[in-house]
């Protein structure tokens, strides 16, 4: 049974390992995955702990449905206090690791302490072992995984690893699995590096009995048909996420030259069709690949066509890499995007943060805030492709003054660089914004301002807001499983009704992250995809767990509130530019300069933005300062946290 998967507590300082079952009451309250990780983080870390010290606790998990007969239950979740933000650290990735861990008997790992020397954890059919990783330390992401397979003599082992960036304590280092599946954002690879933990390897052949196998199989077929019939997923399956960048850039929702423009011009060479052409030329007509059990297969395969890394194989690039190494730095060249993507995959470094911090440094260079002295003679002008590639390398290995400074993340780097460099840093809660520009889309601006792990689109973005869907369609989506009769607007430049959409999406994405499936299988980019009603059924057929759609909604609210409690404990306040729900002043002061007629000349209107935050807080049950009301905590049953039940 899926619900029999256990939790393991691993102390790397002492080598002590304990395992426990996960009580059903806990499952019903937090389900699993990110939600239960948030509970564990709040319970297993002390206020103010050093994110790169032994006291920080690293959670690794699969969701309730991981490896069951539901579509795309591939997601691995990783959580700890973030070395990048000092707040909630959370990363979620596809691939094959979490299912393997579930077949090896575990849903959750709680990792504390720091090993004496580099080690890796090996999980095999109910057994956990800490093994020497001194020979693996220093290897790149794929090299490390193949070395572990060799060490264990088993080709089927799946590992999640930190790359050289994690070892070098780059604040935005990723956890990675496979060629490019990245647990990105908030520096979870850095936490692994700080613990001398190079990897976690899993291999399992333990049965997961399906509660109602016939129904599970048939429902899964229906689920897949629904998912693959959505146009957006068919497009993803043909050309991958680059189509999103192409579409968004066409109307002016993309950051260019840090935050100076909202559209990247002359970008033909990194348009989705061009990238698809390269994939086809180098990998043949069938060049898409997928995560465990997923029929969307949104990942392209490619070989770098030319340049210093010509011929190297990789997967992607995602729209994030087009944004990070093409748009933001104004280097819209395929070779640069594909090479940049390859390097961060090898090093285990967040593409969004890397591209964003390089483009910030480029703007500082343009303004004379940093000069050739700080760059060691490197011409850090916008549009310089070689500089982008060189800086990725310098940041990963902390080479030179600038590489070493930027590797600390934006906030610390701005303190070191000084002057007014902070004003140009496009971040929320210390994490770089992704590659998109939200000045013309208030709902998306509210999303990045309030997302629990810092500026990010995968926590609460109502992406379907861009489709101008008729109001009755929006109402159908947004008034289930709980009623909503407030305003809704089909207009993406509007402010009205957006707080509810962001709030609804926040709960939708939390639910997905708890049960362990991918966001492409829910109301993220497509308006016709499964959500709460379907999850209730799929949970029952696969695990026997009886949860109504409303119950799942309530779990999501509870888990989001625990994340909020953690952030508040670590210093979140409403308007703080470093640790708050607030956007960089440029959103309010600098109008967009490019884009479609309803996009150009737009700023976020501050008074309306403040009203949106007020309303969003009200939906969440927070007071005006963003602190949870006592009655909200009571209603959610978390008034006595930390409760130390697990």
């Amino acid at each position: 049974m899926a619900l029999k998967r256990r939790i393991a507590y691993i102390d790397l300082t002492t080598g002590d390992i304990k395992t426990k079952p996960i009580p059903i009451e806990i499952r019903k309250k937090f389900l699993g995955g990110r939600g239960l990780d948030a509970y564990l983080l709040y319970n297993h870390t002390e206020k103010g702990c050093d994110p790169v010290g032994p006291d920080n606790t690293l959670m690794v998990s699969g969701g309730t449905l991981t490896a069951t007969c539901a579509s795309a239950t591939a997601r691995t979740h990783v959580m700890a206090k973030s070395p990048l933000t000092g707040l909630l650290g959370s990363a979620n990735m596809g691939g094959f690791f979490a299912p393997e861990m579930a077949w090896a008997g575990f849903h959750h790992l709680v990792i504390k302490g720091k090993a004496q020397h580099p080690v890796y954890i090996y999980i095999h059919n109910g057994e956990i072992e800490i093994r020497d990783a001194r020979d693996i330390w220093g290897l790149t992401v794929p090299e490390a995984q193949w070395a572990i397979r060799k060490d264990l003599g088993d080709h089927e082992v799946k590992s999640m690893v930190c790359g050289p960036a994690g070892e070098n304590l780059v604040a935005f280092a990723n956890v990675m699995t496979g060629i490019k599946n990245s647990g990105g954002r908030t520096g979870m690879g850095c936490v692994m590096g700080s613990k001398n933990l190079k990897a976690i390897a899993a291999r399992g052949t333990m049965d997961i009995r399906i509660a109602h196998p016939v129904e599970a199989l048939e429902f899964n077929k229906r689920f897949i048909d629904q998912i693959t019939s959505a146009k957006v997923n068919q497009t993803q399956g043909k050309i991958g996420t680059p189509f999103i960048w192409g579409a968004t850039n066409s109307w002016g929702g993309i950051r260019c030259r840090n935050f100076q423009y909202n559209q990247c011009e002359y970008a033909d060479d990194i348009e989705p069709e061009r990238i698809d052409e390269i994939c086809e030329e180098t990998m043949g007509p069938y060049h898409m690949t997928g995560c465990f059990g997923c029929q969307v297969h949104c990942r392209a395969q490619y070989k770098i066509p030319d340049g210093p890394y010509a011929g190297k194989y990789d997967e992607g690039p995602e729209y994030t890499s087009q944004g990070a190494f093409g748009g933001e730095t104004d280097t819209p060249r395929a070779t640069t995007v594909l090479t940049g993507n390859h390097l961060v995959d090898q090093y285990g470094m967040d593409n969004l943060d890397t591209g964003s911090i390089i483009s910030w440094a480029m703007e500082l260079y343009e303004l004379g805030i940093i000069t050739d002295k700080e760059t060691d003679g490197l011409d850090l002008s916008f549009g310089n492709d070689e500089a982008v590639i060189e800086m990725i390398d310098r940041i990963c290995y902390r080479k030179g003054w600038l590489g070493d400074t930027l590797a600390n993340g934006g906030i610390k780097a701005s303190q070191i660089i000084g002057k007014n460099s902070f004003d140009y840093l496009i971040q929320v809660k210390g994490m770089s914004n992704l590659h998109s520009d939200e000045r013309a889309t208030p709902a998306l601006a509210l999303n990045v301002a309030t997302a629990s792990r810092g500026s990010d689109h995968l926590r609460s973005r109502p992406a379907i807001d861009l489709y101008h869907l008729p109001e009755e369609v929006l109402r159908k989506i947004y008034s289930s499983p709980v009623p909503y009769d407030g305003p809704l607007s089909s207009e993406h430049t509007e402010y009205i009704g957006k707080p509810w959409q962001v709030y609804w999406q926040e709960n939708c994405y939390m639910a997905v992250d708890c049960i362990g499936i991918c966001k492409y299988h829910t109301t993220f980019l497509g308006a016709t995809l499964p959500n709460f009603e379907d999850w209730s059924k799929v949970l029952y057929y696969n695990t026997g767990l009886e949860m109504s759609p409303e119950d799942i909604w309530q779990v999501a609210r509870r888990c989001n509130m625990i994340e909020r409690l953690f952030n508040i404990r670590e210093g979140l306040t409403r308007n703080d530019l470093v640790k708050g729900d607030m956007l960089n002043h440029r959103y309010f002061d600098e109008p967009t300069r490019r884009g479609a007629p309803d996009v150009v000349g737009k700023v976020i209107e501050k008074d309306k933005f403040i009203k949106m935050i007020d309303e969003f807080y009200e939906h969440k049950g927070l007071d005006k300062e963003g602190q949870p009301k006592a009655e909200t905590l009571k209603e959610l049953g978390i008034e006595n946290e930390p409760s130390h039940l697990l």
Partner: protein
Amino acid sequence: MAKALYIDYQKCTGCRLCELVCAVMHDGISNPARSRIKVMKWEAEGLYVPMSCQQCEDAPCMNVCPVKAISRDEELGTVVVDYDVCIGCRACVAVCPFGAMNYNPIDKKVFKCDLCDGDPQCVRFCEEKAVDFVELEDISNIKKREAAERLSNAGKDAAALMAQM
């Protein structure tokens, strides 16, 4: 006329849904170790090859079985294990040139693809049709058509090149 599994590994995206639904269909359990079909992977090159029983005409497993537990189902075109006769010696596992005869150490039984009695779930769930179920008489026509397309494309490319010269 019997149908057969037709695997085109180039189309495989490596998602392993076939392994999942195979195990759930047969045993009600999620566990790739129980799957009759298995995707072999070379991740560093992006190469994924689904492997399953070919239901050989002159099947080595059938020939090697010391107790004659393996026979042919002529109607479905499958090679079938009779568990009442099978002694679990695994000679069939050793001899199969495709590694398609598996052994399950939990149930202590050999097991292999039975085409789900004519409705193979791996095929039903594979949207890419990397695993397909086709009439035996058509099985070479698919390859012929693809080869012909490649040849004709090559012909067109050559003609275009000639025209430029």
